[in-house]
């Protein structure tokens, strides 16, 4: 929980200068409190990078091993939806950045609006993700007992050319598409989990912003949440090309 510094506590100390009410008394100065909070947040994001790192490493390994399976499997992903989602997420991040600005210039109304917009676009991202997941469910592309490889062994015939849209895979290699789909669900699922946690925090921040907590000189929670939200954006910016785009049409 990176929002430690967001705890209310009346200042009961005997220093000379006036502190904001959110000043925690074990910090010597407000500056120190703010720096510690954002430093802690950056460190937390570092642990997040390592957390996703394990999955990226697995992706790298299996992509090299089962390249032939990864190409048709990756072609199953819906690029228009993925691209739309990228735009949606960047927009959400943009509003978050505006929210940080609004908190800094102490505009309560604007801050609340921007946070709500951030939330709406974040939720929209998850909505699109749901549509994509549903499509995989219908095609039996969810790894596990009901996973079906038929589409990779007998690719559907393309109506225009009269030939299969993909090169058919042998059964053995077609099995490996399951690894791709697991990594797809593992990585986008972890990402979605971070989005859901973020949306929960956003609702909490909106409620507090509405009370005017962040527009009287105390912006640390908004700033730190902004860092988290942008981190989640950045993870997606790596996931999208790796899963959807790379080598969709490999050179023959």
């Amino acid at each position, binding site marked *: *929980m990176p929002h430690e510094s967001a705890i209310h506590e009346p200042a009961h100390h005997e220093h000379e200068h006036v502190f904001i009410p959110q000043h925690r008394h074990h910090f010597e100065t407000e500056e120190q409190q703010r720096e510690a909070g954002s430093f802690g947040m950056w460190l937390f994001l570092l642990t997040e990078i390592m957390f996703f790192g*394990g999955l990226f490493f697995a992706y790298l390994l299996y992509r090299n091993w089962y390249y032939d399976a990864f190409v048709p499997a990756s072609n199953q992903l819906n690029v228009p939806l993925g691209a739309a989602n990228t735009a949606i997420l960047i927009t959400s991040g943009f509003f978050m950045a505006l929210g940080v600005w609004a908190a800094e210039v102490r505009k309560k109304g604007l801050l609340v609006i921007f946070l709500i917009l951030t939330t709406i676009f974040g939720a929209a991202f998850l909505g699109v993700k749901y549509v994509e997941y549903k499509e995989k469910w219908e095609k039996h592309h969810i*790894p596990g007992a009901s996973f079906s490889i038929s589409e990779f062994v007998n690719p559907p015939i393309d109506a225009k050319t009269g030939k299969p849209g993909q090169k058919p895979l042998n059964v053995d290699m077609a099995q490996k598409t399951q690894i791709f789909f697991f990594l797809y669900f593992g990585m986008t699922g972890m990402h979605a989990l971070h989005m859901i946690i973020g949306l929960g925090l956003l609702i909490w921040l909106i409620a507090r912003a509405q009370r005017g907590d962040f527009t009287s000189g105390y912006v640390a929670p908004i700033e730190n949440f902004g860092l988290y939200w942008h981190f989640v954006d950045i993870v997606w910016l790596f996931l999208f090309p790796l899963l959807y785009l790379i080598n969709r049409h490999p050179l023959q």
Partner: protein
Amino acid sequence: MSATATTILNLPDQATATVPKKNYITAEHGLLSWLLTGDHKRIAMLYLVSITFFFFIGGAFAGLIRLELLTPQPDLVASDTYNKFFTMHGVIMVFLFLVPSVPATIGNFLIPIMLGTRDLAFPKINLLSWYLYTIAGAMVIASMVLGGVDTGWTFTTPLSTHYLNTHVITTGLAIFVAGFSSIFTGLNFIVTVHRMRCPGMTWFRMPLFVWSHYAASILMVLGTPVLAITLILVVLERVFGIGVFDPTKGGDPLLFQHLFWFYSHPAVYIMILPGMGVISEVVSTFSRKRVFGYTAVAFSSVAIALFGFFVWAHHMFIMGISNYSALVFSLLTMLVAVPSAIKIFNWAFTLQKGSITFETPMLYAFGFMGLFTIGGLTGVFLGSLGMDIHLTETYFIVAHFHFVMVGGMLMAFLAGVHFWWPKMTGRMYPESLSKLAAVVTFIGFNLTFLPQFILGYLGMPRRYHAYPPEYQVLNVLSTAGATVLGVGYLLPIIYLAWSLKYGPVAGNNPWQATGLEWQIQSPPLTENFTTIPIMDHEAYDYEWLEHQNQHGGTYIG
């Protein structure tokens, strides 16, 4: 102090001395005041109680293992029960005792004080870390009560994902939760060291205890998330059969090994580095000398942390990794020996021409130095490719890591607990009884684990509950040693509890040590310092301390 003094212990006049009425223990009352506290010292105490509890549970399993191995026949328990015993022993000792042992207790208590600040940067996160630890502990206990788990503490796939029908998921998730507890502790330490040092406290005035915790924290923050994702993958593999580690679906079990040891090798440095920090403090105090080569010791901690991330595949030499990568990892493994040796040599030079006295913490510290050196050197044996292939998965490995973890870390933990006990509680433990405990521990330890080196060299494999009769003599020795060791560990619990009420009043600085923590009252105030100190001298500056004492008055608060 004359060179022939037998003790530096300097207690106030017991007839008049009292423990200060106002301190962090008496500041608030009631169970809730402990369970909802933000005070790093109280959280350290919560941790101390809980890790001691788990230490004795883990120890009980060790006792059962040794009891079974008393005879060559499998007579005490069935083989799968035995598997559950050593799994519970490993899981509890590694994740619930060794990883949080020194950092979460002594480190939590002292790092803010040593840095001259009032608390860690994030007190609530610190408390959260203890709750996560408790939840993880409860989950491990639950999996134990519900029937146990028998994967070994390494959760090796595909054994853990396909072949066992025990509580792997509960235990795996418990370790996941415990991991976050460890991440939050490390994160808190790093931010505190970077942002909360008092005026004048430069990086190279920090006690070496803080340096070693800083290095260990880097490992906690960077390594633990990888373990977290790995265990999530194991759980997903068990629940949904997703195939990422399953060779029948194209997955690679070796990938699990890579990911697991990427954390679990650095984890051994998470365990040992804070212990090295304790030893630096203790050796300096009881030699009345500044730690020799302060900068080298400080940087060697960071070097261990750094190299620690590049040696993990030495756990995998016989698992079919390529010969070339095995060669490289073997070489890199040798490199870790260098900073470890730097520390040992520097402590030895600190002792040289020092006014050495042999109080209990120092006895434990000597135990550490000897046993850790043996543990470290046998690690070099195991790091060499050819030797490793002969010795791996035998009792040689078991003896090696117990020398480092128990002979090293546990000795350091006990050294630290005794050294700072007067600071934490305001009272001294009984000196002669504690010296006895230190000696009993040392003897018991050697009797338990030296025979295991020979057993391993002769080829007795680990993790079996039966063995050929010719190994019995050495196994009996080992079991006898374990009994002595058990006594050595029970003694402190008894006399430390006794000392809480009846121990002599310790005063501010019973050891005449130089650290900031010794310049404030024992036990400290909730806010540690009445005014924030200004550090105007180097660490371990005994001349400064003498000057302070001569000119009267305490330095701080």
